C-alpha cells in the first residue's frame, strides 16, 4: 500500500470527559459573542480570554509540569482546541504560542528559555508571532535575506519580515533568518532566534491592512537590532530542520478545516426554516467532508503523539481542509439568495460576507496549496 493510511484515533475517555467541561465553560464565556465575531475564528484576539484559558489549565497542555504544562495527552489538547474553534472563541492571543512557538522552544530551546517563557505561555500571558516570510522569500523560505551577524555578546539583525500575523500585539517573535553563509547556501546557515519585542531596539512594526479592511498582519523591520547570544534557539545552522518540524504542528490541526465553521452553522440555521432536497443533499455532503477531515486530523494527532514527524500527512489534511473551507461560501451562496454584507442584521449574511472575504487566505497562510501538493508528491516518491 503506497497510500498513507492514517491511524484510527484511539478512544480517549479522559478527552471526552474534558469535552463536556470545555463546552460548559465556553457556553458561559461566549454567551454574548455574536456569530459575526465568532466567524473571526482563530483571528479573534482577547488577552483576558487567553488568561482565563490558561487559568483553566488548557494551554501548554502536553508540556512537562516543570515548565508550567499539564502533562496531558495530545487528544485532550485536541478536544480543547477543536471545541474553541467550533464555538468561535477568540483564541488569537495564545494561538501561535500554544500551537507552535511553545513546542519549538520545548524541543529546541535552552533551559533558560524554557524555564522563563513556557510557564508564561501556559498561563496565557504571552503573545507570539512567527517571523518567517519576507518580501522576496514567501514559498521559498530558504531564500531568507534577513541576517543575524554574530557580534560580541550576541547578534545584530537586519532585514524585513512580512505578513507577520499579530506582531503588533506580540511580546515575542521567533525569527527565522540567516546566521552564516550566503543566500546561495539555501537551507544551510539558517537559524531561529527568540526576539523579545519589548526589549529589542531597532525593530519597527508597520500594519498591513488586508482586503477585508482588517489589521492582522504586519511588516516587521529589523535595523541593526541587537539580540543577546542567549536568543539562539537550538543549534546555529539548524534553523531549517527546526522550522520543518514545527510545520507539522502548524498544518494538521482543526484550524485547517474549521475556519468556515460559523458559516456552516448559520447555513444550517437558515436552511432549517425551509428545508428542500438541495439543502439536504448539500448538507449531507458537507457533513461527510467535515467528519472525514476531522478523523484525518485526529489521525495526525495520533502520529504526533507517537513521536513521528507526519509532514506529508499534515500537508494532506491542510490541502483537503482548505478546499473544504473555501468551498463553503460557494455552496452557501448556491443554496441561499443573499447579497453578502458584513453589517447585515442577518447572522447568515454577515457571516457569509466575512467568510467570503477571508477565504482566499485559507490556501495561502501556513504554506500554499501548491507547496503542500509538492510535499505530498515527494511523499509519493515522484519528486
Amino acid at each position, binding site marked *: 500500500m503506497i497510500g498513507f493510511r*492514517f491511524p484510527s484515533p484511539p478512544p480517549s475517555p479522559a478527552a471526552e470527559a474534558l469535552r463536556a467541561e470545555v463546552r460548559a465553560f465556553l457556553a458561559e464565556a461566549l454567551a454574548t459573542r455574536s456569530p459575526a465575531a465568532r466567524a473571526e475564528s482563530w483571528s479573534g484576539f482577547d488577552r483576558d480570554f487567553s488568561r482565563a484559558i490558561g487559568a483553566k489549565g488548557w494551554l501548554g497542555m502536553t508540556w512537562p509540569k516543570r515548565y508550567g504544562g499539564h502533562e496531558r495527552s495530545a487528544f485532550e489538547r485536541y478536544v480543547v482546541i477543536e471545541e474553541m474553534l467550533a464555538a468561535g472563541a477568540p483564541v488569537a492571543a495564545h494561538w501561535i504560542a500554544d500551537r507552535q512557538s511553545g513546542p519549538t522552544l520545548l524541543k529546541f530551546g535552552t533551559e533558560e528559555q524554557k524555564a522563563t517563557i513556557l510557564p508564561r505561555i501556559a498561563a496565557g500571558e504571552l503573545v507570539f508571532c512567527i517571523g518567517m516570510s519576507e518580501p522576496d522569500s514567501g514559498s521559498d523560505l530558504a531564500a531568507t535575506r534577513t541576517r543575524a551577524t554574530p557580534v560580541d555578546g550576541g547578534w545584530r539583525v537586519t532585514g524585513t519580515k512580512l505578513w507577520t500575523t499579530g506582531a503588533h500585539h506580540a511580546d515575542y517573535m521567533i525569527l527565522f533568518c540567516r546566521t552564516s553563509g550566503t543566500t546561495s547556501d539555501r537551507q544551510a546557515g539558517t537559524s531561529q532566534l527568540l526576539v523579545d519585542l519589548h526589549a529589542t531596539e531597532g525593530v519597527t512594526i508597520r500594519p498591513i491592512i488586508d482586503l477585508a479592511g482588517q489589521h492582522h498582519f504586519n511588516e516587521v523591520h529589523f535595523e541593526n537590532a541587537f539580540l543577546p547570544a542567549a536568543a539562539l534557539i537550538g543549534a546555529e545552522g539548524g534553523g531549517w530542520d527546526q522550522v520543518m518540524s514545527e510545520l507539522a504542528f502548524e498544518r494538521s490541526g482543526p484550524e485547517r478545516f474549521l475556519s468556515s465553521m460559523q458559516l456552516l452553522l448559520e447555513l444550517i440555521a437558515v436552511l432549517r426554516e425551509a428545508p428542500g432536497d438541495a439543502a439536504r443533499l448539500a448538507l449531507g455532503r458537507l457533513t461527510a467532508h467535515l467528519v472525514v477531515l476531522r478523523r484525518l486530523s485526529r489521525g495526525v494527532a495520533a502520529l504526533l503523539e507517537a513521536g513521528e514527524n507526519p509532514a506529508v500527512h499534515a500537508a494532506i489534511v491542510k490541502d483537503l481542509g482548505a478546499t473544504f473551507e473555501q468551498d463553503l461560501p460557494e455552496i452557501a451562496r448556491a443554496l441561499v439568495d443573499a447579497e453578502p454584507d458584513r453589517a447585515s442584521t442577518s447572522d447568515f449574511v454577515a457571516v457569509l460576507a466575512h467568510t467570503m472575504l477571508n477565504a482566499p487566505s485559507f490556501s495561502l497562510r501556513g504554506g500554499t496549496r501548491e507547496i503542500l501538493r509538492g510535499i505530498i508528491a515527494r511523499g509519493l516518491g515522484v519528486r
Partner: protein
Amino acid sequence: MSEIATMLTDAIERLLEARLDDSAMHAARTGTWPSDLWRALEEQGVPLALVPEDAGGFGVDPREALDLIRLFGRHAVPLPLGETMLANAALARAGLPLADGPAALVPIDGAARIAWGRNCRTFVVETATGIARITDATLEHEAIDLAGLPRDAMRFHAPERAAPIPGKLIEHGALVRALQCAGALDRVLELTVAHVAERVQFGRPLSKFQAIQQELAKLAGEVVAASAAADLAADAFIADPADATFAIAVARVRIGEAVGRANGIAHQLHGAIGFTAEHRLHLFTTSLWTWRDEFGGAAHWATRLGDRALAAGKEGFWPMVTAA
C-alpha cells in the same frame, strides 16, 4: 495485526496474486464464475471470517476481517466475498444456520441487481421483521455492472422464518462496498504513480512535470480521505452495527466523491492507453464506478446525512460531528 490475521492476510494475498491474473479477470467479465478461486478462498475460511468463534468462526479480530474486504477491493476480486462474510455474520447473529456457499445480502427492495445472483446459494433477505435465510431462488433477469460483472434480478421462494438483527442490510452492503472502494482506490493511485514514472514524453518521465505532480497529490488526498472514511464506517460497525448508520452514510458520500475525482485523475494521467480494454486500469475504475452506487447511491446517503444535520440544527450540529 494478530498472528492469525497476518497469516490469513498473507495467504490470501499470495493466493490472489497467483490465481487472479488478467485472464481470470476477463473470464469473469464474460460471466464465468471463478470457481477455483472461490473454493480456494473458502478453504482459507474467508466466508467465516466475521463469524464469532462460538458460532462456528475461528476468532479473527473483526477489524482485521473487515480489512480483508479492502484487500478484495485492492485486487478487484470478482466474487461476492464481502457479501458472504457479512451474510454469515448476520445469520450467526440471528441464530440461523450459516450460508452454504456464496451468499447475497438482499436489503428491502434490493432483489433487482444482485452480484452473481445466479451463482449465490444462500440469500439473506431483509423483511419487515428481520432477515430470512433463503436458498430457493429463481433467476429472473441477467444484467451486468459497469465492469461487465453479473448483477442479477432474483425471485425468492419459500421464505423461511425471519429473525431480527441489529442494523439494516443496506448498511451491511454499503459497508462492504465502502471497504472495497478504499482498497481499489489505493490500487488506482499505485498504478498511476507507476505509470507516470515510466512513461516518457518530452524527454523525461511524466512524473517530473509539476502539473503531473500536483494532480498526483490531489489523487492521493482523495484516496486518503476515502480510506479514512472506510475506517470510520468499519470502526462504527464493529462498535455497534445497530448504531452505524451515520458513519456508513459519511463513508459512502465521501467515497463516492473520491471515486469520481480519483478515477478522473487516474484516467487523465494514463492517457489513451488507460482507456483500452487491454490495460489493467479499467479493472479497478469500472468496479469503483459500480460499487459506489450499490446499496444506496449518493442521493440516498447524502439525504440521510442532510436530514440529521437539519434535525441537529445549529446547536446540535457540532456535538453530532464529534460523536461520530
